[in-house]
């Protein structure tokens, strides 16, 4: 094992849209005892091509090896890793809170305003807040709201766009040569 420092990396994986790939990819992390911090899968800009975004805490030597193992999978087109500084990313958090707090605690309204959170829905019992941004922003909001009591809280996986160009379409053309 390398002694190099660990940091958060976002792994972007472009794949064929096939059943079972999630299993293959997660197994690569599992075998090496690497905890997946967050995972998102969605269609990509290219038709028929899916994109996984996986966040892991690792050192660079080992993430490179992981990328090699991922790319080795037959239906993986290309895998990249980035430090969080090299990508533009968003995480979304949802908060379910008792409606009475919205009217009785003035401070809550200020917190919502200051944090640029959005009210998704309000009914008699509860309201739902949505906040997108960096993880820290969502955690900060969580900390502020938890003082008053949160009924439910959930955070999405990280989704990312790279600053650098990713030439997947061109890559696909070279594959088909």
């Amino acid at each position, binding site marked *: 094992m390398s002694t190099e420092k660990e940091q958060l990396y976002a792994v972007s994986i472009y794949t064929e849209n096939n059943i*079972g790939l999630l299993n293959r990819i997660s197994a690569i992390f599992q075998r090496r005892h690497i905890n997946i911090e967050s995972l998102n899968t969605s269609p990509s800009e290219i038709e028929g091509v899916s994109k996984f975004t996986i966040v892991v805490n690792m050192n660079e030597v080992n993430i490179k*090896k992981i990328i*090699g193992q991922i790319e080795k999978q*037959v239906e993986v*087109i290309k895998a990249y890793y980035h430090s969080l500084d090299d990508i533009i990313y968003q995480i979304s958090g949802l908060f379910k809170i008792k409606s009475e707090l919205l009217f009785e605690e003035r401070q809550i309204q200020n917190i919502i305003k200051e944090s640029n959170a959005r009210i998704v829905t309000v009914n008699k019992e509860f309201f739902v807040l949505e906040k997108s941004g960096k993880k820290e922003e969502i955690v900060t909001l969580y900390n502020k709201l938890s003082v008053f009591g949160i009924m439910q809280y959930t955070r999405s996986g990280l989704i990312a766009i790279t600053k650098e160009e990713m030439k997947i379409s061109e890559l696909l053309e070279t*594959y088909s040569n």
Partner: protein
Amino acid sequence: METQTITNTETAKKVTERISGSEAIVRCLIAEDVKIIYGYPGGAIMPVYDELYKYQDKIHHVLTRHEQGATHAAQGFARISGQVGVAIATSGPGATNLITGIADAQIDSTPMVCITGQVPSHLLGSDAFQETDIVGISTPVTKWNCQVTKAADIPAALAKAFYIAKSGRPGPVLVDITKDAQFEEFDFVYEKCEKVRSYLPIPKTVAGSLEAAAKIINEAKKPFIIWGQGVVLSEAEQELIAVVEKAGIPAAWTILGASAIATSHPLNVGMLGMHGNYAPNKLTNECDVLIAIGMRFDDRVTGDLNKYAKQAKVIHFEIDPAEVDKNVKTDVAVLGDAKDTLAKLLPLLNANSHIDWHQQFKDLYKIEYNKVIKNDIYPTKEGLTMGEVIHQINVESKGEAAIVTDVGQHQMIACRYADFNKTKSNITSGGLGTMGFGLPAAIGAKMAAPEREVVSISGDGGYQMTIQELGTIFQQKAAVKIVVLNNEFLGMVRQWQQLFFDRRYASTEMTNPNFVAIAEGYYIKAKKVTKRSELADAVKEMMESKEAYFLEVCVEKEGNVFPMVPSGASVSDIRLE
């Protein structure tokens, strides 16, 4: 040109036919030129067996006595022929019994296609009778796998399976086919798969890497080649020999690389690794340039990575980019197929001889010979050694036989002492070390190369893991020669207990049955040797037999395999005793 036009028009007016999914499976196999398959029937695969009955003249199905035997036989078939081995099984227990062989094929890069039946698709996920998630179970040990639930998807899935299994770095694939898909009728057309969009079987050689490698090799004072199975898989034996000879580089092999260069070649300096030869292990930490070709720096080869070839520049010829820098950091990685890259390397190399350097190998060999080899193959003390049995087989086979081994002491001894004059002659379970591999693998090897002498060498332990395949040998009239080196112990484990656990022989002693009677029970000619004076004649009789023959040799109970790099130690700490 004219012939090409003809084929083109022929493919253009491809005829479709309405057939069942199960018939399609058999027709796909025929289209892939598969002539022999190994398997075991059961409910979920019965429609396929029914078709196999119909197509008996085209495909020979071998009924093994256990599905594990089917995979190992398919592996033996693949390893000696270079073609894809095929195994089939029913759902549930049939499918799970394939797993050991699949895992073995995965780590040893053996091309294999496994077809399993599955419960009807409407029952999937319901814990139906004999349903297991074989796709989930086999995912970590296959190069690729998939489940087919519609007949129309069968041809494309199987075409892809064969292509993936044999291209690039080969490996096992599994296609699981539901029973309803086997019954369903559809319009059959088969097209071979020649590419998969996301899959690049052979990576491009990085520009300049060959030149960089050649420069380092040309400047080297003590270059050392270590080659692995990649050379055999890409059939780069001649290219490797040309490089070795032109640049005068001593070359050693991993267990799966054995036989790519003949044992007698003067620059072949022996086996690497835990029970490899003294010189190549020691001198790994002396060379100035280490050239690894088609090998993956397995820990059984490297020992302690922190003390492995630290002084050397490392050049790695490799088809699988994920292997580069995985265990050993390289200075130059030459990606690509070894046959191609070695051919391109050759003209860039200066002719050289490195006589002094080569002498160092010879000197260390002399030490190993006097301390170990002499006593192993020409013993004077009482008790037969495994080494002298292998030596006797060499005498009778003249190095022409394919040697199939099981796992344990006898495997190490066989690989150390067997003479190999021909490539693809060493069939053994390397990466997984699967006991029970040997006997069924020998069946596959013999059926793929009936013209060759195939000698299976097992220990008394591993032999009993798949002993039931004697039935397959008998039924198929497969003329394999079966040698069991009986030390009444799980020898290799006992050796470790002796060396590292204070001789506490916990559950390694074996009370064995009458092996000769068992072989004879399967109508196989059999003999048992207990004395040195009987050995030569018995081996001769076995090798001259036209049919299968079983030979049990009772060897010394507590013989050890040396040299040895204790696990976790450095290769330079290799022990001679």
